[in-house]
């Protein structure tokens, strides 16, 4: 059957409009139910006992004193886990509760349920664990030499067959470090597990991927998947930190054990131990180029500290390796990327996912090279910019638009912000009056990054959508049901927009995401608008085909404003009349074009689905005597293919840019001998509104013919290049090498 090819007109609230969030009113009214807001009759509170040691053998656990405390309903340890005692996203290696040993500080050892959170915490404190402390392995190079390897990804591509000698007229080298960054979402890990009459569990939780949680929780509970039903509770931000499990299995175990609903809510400190972080990295680069700045080769060695368990380290390593030279044409590439196990906190997914660390290094190198050959940094980048038809270091041909040179030109050509006025709040130090202009130097820096969109390396990446069209209250109405996690990015808005556009119906409801519909995959890798958006569109098109088949002239018809309309604009039928009491429902599982694994020796292969690009220009004023930095402005240019919701797109770009700024100048989880020293918002600083500058945004819409509506994943690219742009600007102001982020005042002014 053919479906109308009439291009969808701009529909009110449809694709391309800045439709309002359907959850917006509840959110501004304080009535949106986040995972920490849930409540049930007879509800108990869970608490977790965590290891104070980064590495230790567990000799004994004594729960007697905790059990004896009035108000305590359950105290559980590894022995009480009925199913699989380990879980994991890719590799099942992380214990639900520690078994005989702990491998990082904060590893869960026991869990408690009690009738008040303070009682639960008190009981947890009365559990005595006898540890035989071991010396932790905390240096990634030590780990590598010991063979504690998670994954090694080589990428080797040579300009000429057999030509392995790396020589060039101009060679610049550098070693760079990226500190451990925290996602610092505001809504802590939390959820409510409710025991069900069928012996299963209903789990209401904030997550990025309901089905991967379901699979892991069911395995650990020893239950079939259908008895573990997950619903998405309100998610207070994610940024990668909710891709791994946190309290899901624990709350479920306690609920099944006590027969009562159990709520778990992490405090901020516990949250720093409750999720994975961005991998700290050490990256050594060598760039060879001609005297006029044309890249000849890039050689890199990247070591990422994966911490105690695998999490998503293998995919992060692959990203760092395959995207490790940036959005440039480089004839010869030799990259060796390693992820290692240590006794540091586990690291995994965070916005940018391996591309962030590499970008700080390769963009620092590009600036160094520009200085070496005497070229403007933007000009150097433009000379080497990849384009459509370029070949990635993996050998993959870039089919879609790759407007790298254009994005650089856009940020370069924006007018520069004026010099600071007399308002002391516009100087470094701001309200604190630290300078009246003494020692203040302005600097401008540029960077551009590349990110893969969707899951790579042959992963069976799909999303499911169920779309139902019926007449409700005398008008046509659409119900969209997916398991895709709205984490703040606006996915619920986008799903409704797509349904309006495809079905010409204004009244669209997006059902709460849950596991009663098929998997949508993860809200990560900038993939959900592409994937779940693609699935919703496909399901809508299936519904449309069914409806139009009733009219019998499908090829010529469109759905507009609740009516079936012929190509000449004549109304053929109204949906209300056509449907009557019928319900048309279609469920579609949708896939992007397949990818291939990387060759384990050469790193060659069509591993990625789509590439996305963003460029930044940062302007900073630096107090060169006292090291304070004020970011005056950040301009971003990003190609989004199609801005499905322009307001939300700009929001993603600005928010992502802010997280990159944070990494540039303040954010780092400080780990000493495997122990986190700053697990609080007192000591782990994220930017305040006074730290953030105005952020001008240029959005390019160069459609990708392979993607729904031509769209390109938006969420991650802006996080990637803002860090090196800010640091480049500080370098321009100070002349300091600044090879490590975050940059601190003492690195600038001593």
């Amino acid at each position, binding site marked *: 059957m053919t479906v109308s090819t009439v291009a969808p007109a701009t529909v009110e609230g449809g694709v391309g409009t800045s439709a309002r969030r359907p959850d*917006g*009113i509840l959110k501004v009214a*304080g009535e949106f139910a986040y995972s920490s807001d849930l409540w049930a009759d007879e509800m108990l509170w869970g608490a977790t006992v965590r290891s104070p040691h980064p590495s230790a053998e567990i000799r004994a656990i004594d729960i007697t004193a905790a059990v004896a405390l009035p108000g305590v309903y359950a105290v559980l340890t590894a022995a009480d886990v009925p199913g699989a005692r380990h879980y994991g996203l890719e590799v099942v290696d992380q214990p639900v509760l520690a078994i005989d040993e702990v491998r990082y500080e904060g590893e869960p050892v026991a869990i408690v349920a009690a009738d008040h959170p303070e009682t639960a915490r008190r009981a947890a404190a009365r559990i005595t664990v006898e540890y035989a402390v071991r010396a932790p392995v905390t240096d990634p190079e030590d780990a590598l030499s010991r063979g504690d390897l998670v994954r090694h990804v080589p990428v080797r591509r040579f300009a000429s067959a057999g030509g392995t000698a790396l020589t060039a007229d101009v060679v610049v080298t550098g070693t760079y470090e990226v500190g451990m960054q925290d996602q610092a979402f505001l809504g802590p890990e939390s959820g409510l597990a409710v025991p069900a009459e069928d012996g299963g569990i209903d789990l209401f939780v904030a997550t990025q991927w309901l089905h991967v949680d379901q699979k892991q929780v069911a395995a650990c509970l020893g239950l079939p998947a259908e008895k573990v039903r997950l619903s998405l509770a309100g998610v207070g*931000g994610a940024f990668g930190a909710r891709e791994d499990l946190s309290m899901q299995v624990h709350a479920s175990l306690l609920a099944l054990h006590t027969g009562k609903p159990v709520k778990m809510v992490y*405090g901020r400190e516990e949250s720093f131990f409750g999720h994975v972080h961005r991998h700290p990295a050490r990256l050594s680069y060598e760039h060879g180029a001609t005297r006029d700045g044309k890249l000849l080769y890039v050689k890199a060695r990247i070591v990422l500290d994966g911490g105690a368990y695998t999490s998503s380290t293998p995919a992060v390593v692959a990203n760092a390796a395959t995207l490790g030279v940036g959005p440039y044409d480089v004839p010869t590439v030799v990259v060796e990327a390693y992820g290692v196990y240590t006794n540091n906190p586990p690291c995994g997914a965070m916005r940018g996912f391996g591309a962030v660390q590499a970008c700080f290094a390769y963009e620092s190198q590009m600036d160094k090279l520009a200085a070496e050959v005497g070229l403007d940094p933007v000009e150097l980048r433009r000379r080497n910019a990849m384009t459509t038809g370029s070949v990635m270091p993996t050998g993959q041909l870039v089919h879609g638009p790759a407007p790298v040179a254009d994005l650089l030109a856009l940020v370069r050509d924006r007018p520069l912000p004026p010099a600071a006025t007399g308002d002391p709040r*516009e100087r470094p130090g701001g309200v604190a009056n630290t300078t009246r202009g003494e020692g203040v130097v302005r600097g401008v820096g540029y960077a551009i990054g590349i990110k893969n969109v969707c899951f790579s390396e042959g992963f069976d990446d799909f999303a499911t959508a169920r779309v139902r069209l019926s007449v409700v209250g005398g008008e046509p109405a659409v119900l969209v049901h997916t398991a895709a996690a709205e984490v*703040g*990015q606006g996915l619920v808005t986008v799903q409704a927009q797509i349904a309006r556009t495809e079905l010409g119906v204004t009244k669209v409801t997006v059902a709460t995401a849950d596991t009663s519909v098929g998997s949508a995959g993860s809200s990560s890798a900038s993939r959900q608008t592409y994937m779940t958006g693609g699935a919703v569109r496909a399901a809508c098109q299936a519904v449309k085909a069914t409806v139009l088949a009733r009219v019998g002239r499908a090829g010529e018809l469109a759905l507009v404003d609740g009516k079936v309309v012929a190509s000449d604009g004549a109304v053929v039928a109204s949906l209300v009349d056509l449907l009557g009491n019928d319900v048309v429902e279609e469920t579609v599982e949708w896939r992007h074009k397949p990818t291939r694994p990387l060759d384990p020796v050469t790193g060659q292969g069509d591993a990625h689905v789509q590439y996305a690009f963003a460029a930044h220009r940062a302007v900073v004023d630096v107090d060169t005597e006292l090291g304070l930095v004020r970011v005056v402005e950040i301009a971003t240019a990003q190609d989004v293919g199609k801005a499905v919701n322009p307001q939300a797109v700009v929001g993603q770009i600005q*928010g992502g840019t*802010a997280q990159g700024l944070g990494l540039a100048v303040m954010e780092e989880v400080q780990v000493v001998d495997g122990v986190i020293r700053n697990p609080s918002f007192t000591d782990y600083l994220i930017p305040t509104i006074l730290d953030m500058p105005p952020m001008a945004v240029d959005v390019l819409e160069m459609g990708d013919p392979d993607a729904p509506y031509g769209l390109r994943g938006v969420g991650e690219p802006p996080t990637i290049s803002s860090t090196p742009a800010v640091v480049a600007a500080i370098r321009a102001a100070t002349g300091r090498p600044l090879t490590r982020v975050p940059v601190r005042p003492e690195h600038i002014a001593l």
Partner: protein
Amino acid sequence: MRVTCVVNGETREADDVWPGESLLFVLRERLGLPGAKNACEQGECGSCTVYLDGQPVCACLVAAGQAQGRTVTTVEGLAPGSGEEQLDRVQRAFLATGAVQCGFCTPGLIVAVHDLLARDPAPSDPDIREALAGNLCRCTGYEKIMEAVRLAATS
């Protein structure tokens, strides 16, 4: 202990309150008002901002007993009724400008902005930034929050 206070215009009582509990916990878990949020519970993020006797404070650092006999207004108390047209102008401005993403910082920010505009009906951009420096947001980079405050001030 029993804690009695006027919350959003109504006298409310909470029984069996442990004196170590915060006003935030009492509001969220005992009075059914989860609007004030529990992002850090250490006074470092502003997501739990409520009015206490007319002054914005972090409810997480107010002991339950300190609220005894006081007047509390939470984000739930700012709108006179439900429905978009009944929302306070600050709430409407946050919606219109796209200042809400995950929304976890939103209730605290809305109370803080409500207070700012009551004190200063036409704040400059630096004034806005200074007044909101106690409210962390991780999603937006604050640009659209700035837009929301400017819009609210003129509506």
